[in-house]
């Protein structure tokens, strides 16, 4: 059984109508941010969720942790149905499921000391018998994420730290309760490239040490190289291709994935790559294109693409793509 099972997850945000529009009987519109997403993450695995801005990847991450309520679908983590729980049950269950946010400064309370921020999850979930013991645990965690000396960092406020240090604090806070599943939402996107690789390495080490299952959300395919076992590519609220890291990188099937891969910078200047640039802009998710959502921008568009929705086809073992090019 997979650690995380996501089935047909949907989130439709209602678009605000004016009172007059409602009186005139204009229909309520919805932004289909996430529109039927399904995937599994095995225990100890890191699944990369890749897509451009507005593809619904962050919303998917929040839905899985039930930080926002889903319109439809189900999520099972460690065999427990997240959406069948009561508010109190999910609150207790948050010990096992955590999130690392993109912007560490915004994610930390400016009036709370770093140490107290990391200790708070322990207090909430009654881990450790005394404040003294909890403090020891926080010290150990601070040391583990390389914020040394820990007693000095314990007393600091978030604004007194650098961006990389803050993100280490956020990671420490997320992992102190030893969660089974962590969503890393663009966890390194705000950092300098040099610090980014350090933090990716730290996250990978901690993941192996604590045996964490992870959903790694990013818009940057290059960062998935370091940490992800499998990758799911998302476009306009739907997953278009899932495969192992090698499948996606070396043998991308979906035209959108091909475009994404071709946009990753190639370190070797002698290797000339042909760049595939999708035509036009990302369509409006209020009124997505018919059939395959990518068809208006696709360079291999066929007649059928605008008429029917494609299904997932397993092109090779563990590599699935949702495109008519591969449907028989």
């Amino acid at each position, binding site marked *: 059984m997979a650690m995380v099972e996501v089935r047909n997850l949907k989130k439709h945000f209602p678009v605000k109508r004016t009172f007059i529009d409602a009186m005139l009987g204009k229909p309520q519109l919805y932004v289909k941010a996430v529109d039927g997403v399904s995937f599994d993450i095995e225990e100890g695995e890191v699944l990369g969720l890749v897509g451009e801005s507005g593809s619904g990847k962050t919303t998917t991450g929040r839905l899985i942790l039930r*930080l926002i309520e889903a319109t439809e679908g189900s999520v099972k983590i460690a065999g427990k149905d997240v959406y069948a729980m009561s508010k109190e049950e999910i609150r207790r269950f948050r*010990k096992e499921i*955590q999130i690392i*946010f993109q*912007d560490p400064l915004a*994610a*930390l*309370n400016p009036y*709370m000391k770093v140490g107290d921020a990391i200790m708070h999850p322990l207090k909430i979930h009654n881990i450790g018998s005394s404040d003294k013991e909890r403090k020891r645990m926080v010290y150990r965690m601070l040391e583990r994420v390389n914020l040394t000396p820990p007693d000095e960092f314990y007393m600091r406020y978030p604004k007194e730290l650098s961006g990389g240090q803050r993100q280490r604090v956020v990671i420490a806070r997320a992992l102190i309760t030893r969660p089974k599943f962590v969503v890393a939402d663009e966890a390194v996107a705000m950092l300098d490239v040099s610090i980014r690789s350090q933090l990716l390495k730290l996250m990978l080490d901690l993941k192996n040490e604590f045996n964490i299952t992870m959903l790694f959300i990013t818009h940057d395919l290059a960062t998935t190289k370091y940490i992800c076992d499998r990758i799911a590519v998302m476009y306009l609220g739907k997953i278009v291709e899932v495969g192992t890291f090698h499948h996606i990188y070396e043998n991308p099937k979906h035209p959108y994935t091909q475009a994404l891969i071709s946009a990753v910078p190639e370190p070797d200047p002698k290797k000339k790559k042909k760049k595939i640039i999708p035509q036009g802009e990302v369509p409006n998710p209020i009124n997505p294109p018919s059939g395959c959502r990518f068809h208006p921008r696709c360079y291999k568009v066929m007649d059928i693409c605008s008429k029917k929705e494609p299904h997932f086809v397993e092109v090779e073992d563990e590599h699935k793509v949702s495109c008519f090019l591969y449907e028989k």
Partner: protein
Amino acid sequence: MVQDKFMSYKLASTLKELFGSSTGIITFIGLIILLFYVFLAAFAPYLAPYDPTKSVGLSLSPPDHKHPFGTDNLGRDVLSRVIYGARIALVIAFLSVAVAAAIGVPLGLISGYIGGILDRILTLIMDAIYSFPGLILAIAIAALLGPGIFNIAISIAVVYAPTYFRVIRSQVTSIKNELYVEGARAIGAKRSTILLKYVLPNVLPSVVVVLSMNLADAIMTEAGLSFLGLGIAPPTPDWGFDLSNGRRFILSRAWWALLYPGLAIITVVLGFSMFSEGLNEFLNPTVREKR
């Protein structure tokens, strides 16, 4: 802006224009004035030359070496009454502000964070109170409750509670969308914990500013109530009461019975306004360096 309702705020911004941008000096002067009155109030029994409630001289004798501020119509020493009056003024000001904050802050927190129907109802009630002219409302409540320090404090508190409510509520509605509040939810914090540990510390600076501005206005409102005879029962020394009492003898050229309580009210309100203006500068999120 909510702040526009405060007399003290208008006063302070006029002062600021006069002095230019030197808020440091204004704050300092304000603080000195405040400390002076707190000192007066605290050590009134040692500082006042006479018992403020007893007749110690001739009726309405002009200022001389025995009575530096003169005596009132009952022969009581005006200086002693002004010194003792600081006690009532400050006690009522602090008490009413504390009560107003104790009502307004929790309601604002809950209303802003939970929202929905509860928020609508509370906002409606608070706006209704807010739209009343302050002194009129205070008069109505004071008349209902009767005289007494605590009753006066409550009637002033009711007038100013909506200000706290509005400031807090508007801040909370924006703070609850901050990422650190979602972060607190993500680690499994209860609603009450989120409100107390994550939301409240972030709205506290604005509470302090409103509090300091409010003190000046509370003193003025209290003086107004006493002036109208709705304040503390005589013979307790009270600036507002002495002002209205002195007014009756202005035609007998007894200017001293009117002038000194009036000056006391003016200076203490000025002191609070100057101090709060400076505090505002230090603590206001828009002025303050972004954290």
